[in-house]
């Protein structure tokens, strides 16, 4: 009698456990679908938004779409190692060093117009993807440094080559006080 009872309790408990697992799983999968739909947005958030096109795509969003479709994650020089590590983590891949075909990693930079040489042709203003250049026809232009992404898209159109790309701020460094274990960021930075 008691044995029967325990038997039944056991069955009931395992049935309940199974049911609970099933319900949790279905709920999880349903939650997963909208989560994952936002993949392009997630990738785009990690990219530096310089819109420089060095990756070979016309802007950061197109590159994010390409990554979602399978493009390599190591094509973004302005993002540097941190962007590669972030993308690798997001997509669960091994971080790879930056593809040298797309440029080298540089510290944060901004464009600078040598104002006495500027002829006021408006060409750089039209080229700037983030409207960081101020000026009007036949008048001198200048770069709003805080809005400049340093994408160097304005350099090429300038007919008199009066635009320089200069380093913005000295790169910030984080120094860990003590022992540090191996991590993808250090590995990437250690590579020649």
């Amino acid at each position, binding site marked *: 009698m008691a044995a029967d009872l*325990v*038997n*039944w309790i*056991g*069955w009931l408990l*395992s049935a309940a456990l199974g049911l609970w697992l099933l319900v949790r*799983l279905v709920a*999880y999968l349903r939650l*997963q*679908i909208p*989560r*994952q*739909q936002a*993949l392009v947005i997630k990738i785009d958030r990690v990219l530096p938004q310089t819109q420089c096109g060095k990756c070979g795509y016309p802007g950061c969003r197109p590159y994010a779409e390409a*990554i*979602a*479709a*399978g493009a390599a994650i190591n094509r973004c020089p302005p993002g540097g190692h941190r962007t590669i590590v972030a993308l690798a983590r997001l*997509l*669960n*891949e091994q971080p790879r060093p930056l593809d040298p075909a797309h440029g080298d990693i540089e510290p944060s930079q901004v464009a600078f117009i040598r104002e006495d040489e500027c002829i006021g042709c408006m060409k750089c203003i039209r080229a700037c993807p983030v409207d960081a250049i101020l000026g009007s026809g036949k008048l001198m232009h200048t770069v709003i440094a805080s809005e400049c992404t340093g994408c160097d898209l304005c350099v090429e159109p300038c007919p008199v080559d009066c635009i320089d790309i200069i380093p913005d701020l000295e790169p910030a460094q984080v120094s860990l006080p003590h*022992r540090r*274990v*191996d991590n993808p960021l250090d590995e990437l930075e250690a590579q020649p």
Partner: protein
Amino acid sequence: MPFDDFARLILAQAFTNNIVLIQLLGVSAFFAFSRDLRQALEVAVFSALLLLVTTAIGMPLLRWGLHPLGLRSLDLVLLAGLGAGLTRFFVVWVESHLPLSRRRHGVGLYLAGSNGAIIGFALQSSRAESPYVLTLIAALGTSLGLALFLIAFTALRQRLDKIDAPTAFRGAPLLLISAGLVAMSLMALRLPA
């Protein structure tokens, strides 16, 4: 069937007879392992489902279809085909619903990794003489063991990434040592007292 036998069967299949660690089927799942618990959970669930479905379909096909006809040599071919077909079906579903998995090229690869376990179990059960229902229960236990193993191992791997191990042992060596220690402990559970 008394619950006692049921519980024993499930526990034995999940732990002491663990398909990966003891029977060494689908060990390739180790190498395809991710650090991402979310992905591990997905793969674990799909592997478990695949194992159940493949066994449920493949075992009767083999036992009551091929074996009476004397076509035992075709066992593996049929099961591989069945497993591949079902995997494909799952992969298509996953990729259409979970785009992140598609980008990661993951699910297909990971499922292929555990395919050894899936086909292996179906093959074993078709050769054994246990009744159909018992086989299904054993399949349930096996798939639970597989899923638990996949998930726990991913969590373990996350921890392994953060430890201060000697350089020579980082990554795969420690992964294999850990798997070996777990396998040893499961084998120890099967020792005669």
